């Protein structure tokens, strides 16, 4: 009976995690340009020599980011459609959290206690959860945590180092977060050095893991270019203007949960019976606490670190007094998880709910008419976060202003800063529109630029819906 109960709980937990991931899943700009790029690659069976989508990007050779994810996403959409891609992305995200939950917590008591935290892994960054390479990044981080835990416990580098190489080799094709595999093992090596010599695992495998991950990443022909891009993205000042890379809004209490839990885990680990690796594990959580305070994108990783450290602790805490309530609670929790998962899965999810579908159609027709008449202002200008949809819907015919592919090389020519100026909706915004010869503007409804153009006699409103407006420049 016991194994059946454990299996039911594990299955119900996966259902809940997949259901919540599906409920929060979306296709945002990154997902759309990933599909568009993959479609281009599949159609041409070659790498593009220049950017086929945007007109404001730097001319010349274009390095596709995460080409493996691009082809994979395009193939999935071709096979099962956009909604199918969202299902796959939700399953990958659920698999990541399920793996860390089920491997970190082995006893029913620990699994029941950690199930809400595992669901929080999905929920914490629900705003940015979307079908894009990031879901592979989350899975990669979890697999990397397994490698690090194995290096800590077993010290069998002969098996683990080739696995790390393979992980980095695959990961580099899917998401720029592969750099974690290069730096995290070495960082953990430093943390492990805090352990007394008598109980310390060998340090060299941690540093060797970073080395083989670098080699694995660079086996890919694009590896060195991706590495430069990832490091540039991490450290370039312009990255600080991107919402995802900024600190969360700590006035929103929800963002304080993960840091508060991190402190609780650090304190609890200090009181835990297991002495071995106490300080390194506390420092490990502290490391991700600092990262998550600095950048919202690390919130998910912080929760993963909390689960990884708290799981074995809770396993050790299982005692006779917890056994009877756990017995009864397992069925109840499994039932609740199944119900929640089913309800989340039943909720509808439109892949195009955040895309300016109608406005893009109007803009494309207007652009074609202006181009045919030789108008001096033929270009379509839109915000960065909608550029991905324009790439997907137009496939470069016509080309649009900007998207979120790469703000360092592709749009590091001033276009990224100019897009930020457009949001101000002032005289400088009009100057940007003139400089880029904008004849059509598609913009989120109600924003400052919308108000500016509505009041400007040089521009005419030609479309308005719930999320977008489209303006054309009067002759």
């Amino acid at each position, binding site marked *: 009976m016991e194994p059946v109960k454990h299996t039911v709980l594990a299955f119900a937990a996966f259902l809940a995690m997949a259901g919540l991931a599906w409920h929060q899943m979306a296709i945002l700009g990154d997902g759309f340009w990933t599909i568009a790029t993959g479609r281009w690659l599949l159609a041409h069976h070659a790498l593009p020599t220049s950017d086929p989508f945007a*007109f*404001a990007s*730097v*001319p*010349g050779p274009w390095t596709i980011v995460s080409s493996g994810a691009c082809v994979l996403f395009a193939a999935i959409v071709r096979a099962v459609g956009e909604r199918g891609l969202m299902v796959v992305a939700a399953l990958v995200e659920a698999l990541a959290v399920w793996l860390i939950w089920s491997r970190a917590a082995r006893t029913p008591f620990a699994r029941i206690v950690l199930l809400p935290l595992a669901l929080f892994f999905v929920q914490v960054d629900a705003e940015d959860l979307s079908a894009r390479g990031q879901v592979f990044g989350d899975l990669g981080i979890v697999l990397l945590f397994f490698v690090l835990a194995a290096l800590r416990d077993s010290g069998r580098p002969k098996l683990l180092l080739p696995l790390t190489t393979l992980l980095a080799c695959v990961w580099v094709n899917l998401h720029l977060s592969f750099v974690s595999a290069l730096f995290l093992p070495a960082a953990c090596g430093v943390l492990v050095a*805090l352990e007394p010599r008598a109980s310390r695992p060998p340090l060299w495998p941690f540093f060797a893991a970073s080395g083989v991950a670098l080699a694995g990443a660079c086996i890919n022909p694009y590896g060195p270019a991706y590495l430069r891009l990832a490091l540039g993205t991490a450290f370039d*000042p312009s990255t*600080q203007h991107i919402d995802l890379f*900024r*600190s969360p*809004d*700590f*006035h929103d209490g929800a963002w*304080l949960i993960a*840091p*508060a839990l991190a*402190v*609780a885990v*650090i*304190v609890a680990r*200090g*009181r*835990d*019976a297991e002495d071995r690796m106490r*300080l390194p594990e*506390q*420092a490990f959580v*502290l490391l991700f*606490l*600092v990262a998550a*305070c*600095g*950048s919202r994108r690390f919130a998910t990783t912080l929760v993963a670190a909390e689960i990884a450290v708290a799981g074995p602790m809770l396993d050790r805490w299982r005692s006779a007094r917890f056994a009877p309530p756990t017995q009864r609670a397992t069925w109840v929790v499994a039932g609740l998880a199944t119900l929640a998962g089913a309800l989340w899965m039943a909720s509808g999810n439109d892949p195009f709910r955040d895309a300016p579908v109608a406005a893009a159609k109007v803009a494309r027709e207007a652009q074609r008419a202006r181009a045919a008449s*030789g108008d001096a202002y033929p270009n379509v200008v839109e915000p960065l976060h909608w550029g991905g949809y324009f790439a997907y819907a137009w496939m470069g015919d016509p080309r649009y202003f900007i998207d979120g592919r790469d703000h360092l090389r592709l749009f*590091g*020519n*001033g*276009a990224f800063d*100019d897009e930020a100026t457009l949001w101000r909706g002032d005289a400088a915004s009009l100057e940007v529109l*003139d*400089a*880029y*010869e904008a004849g059509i503007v598609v913009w989120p409804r109600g924003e400052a630029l919308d108000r500016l153009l509505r009041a400007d006699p040089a521009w005419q409103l030609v479309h308005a819906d719930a999320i977008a407006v489209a303006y054309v420049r009067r002759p």
Partner: protein
Amino acid sequence: MAVDLEALGLRSPLVAFVAQDPGQTRLLFARALVLFAVVVVVRGRTVRGAWALAIAGTLFVGSLAARGLFVVDLIATAAIALGLARAAPRRVGLFVAALVVASLVIPVLPVRPPAREHVPTTAPEATAYWRARGNLYRAHATAFAWAIGETTPAEGYLTLASIDWEIGDRDRARRVLSKVLANATSDDVLARARELDARWSP
């Protein structure tokens, strides 16, 4: 050594922590360092140690929601760490003291303001600047201003035509070039215009 009251949260104590605001990243590191000092010094499973760590951690989290707690967090946590370090082995005590000193020094180190790149003010220089950065539309806008400032079509017109060509607007490039060919007075400009014309001929 001037202390940045704004960065320390003393001017606007209820504002939430944002790492990207001036001076905030190093304050984050300082507070993390001093929290780490407490983690290091709390050895063994003592109740006192757990309380010390819980207080330090709570102050850390609290200072994320209100910057006014930055200084309180830093000083209180440093005091906790140093207090516990007195009973710790000498080696641990020295390490913790070093961490505390570093965490207290970091916030008052002078910060170099980020270097800002300025766009040249003259049209020819601005055009060259934007071309070098790979922004053909910005380069076009400045080259246009340069060209209309010329009494007879010269360098500005030639540059404008070249940028039109690079953008991919071949007709417009040829139209601009035709004005140079028809009205330029400089032999050098004319020679280069003819060279472009020959290169761009269908």
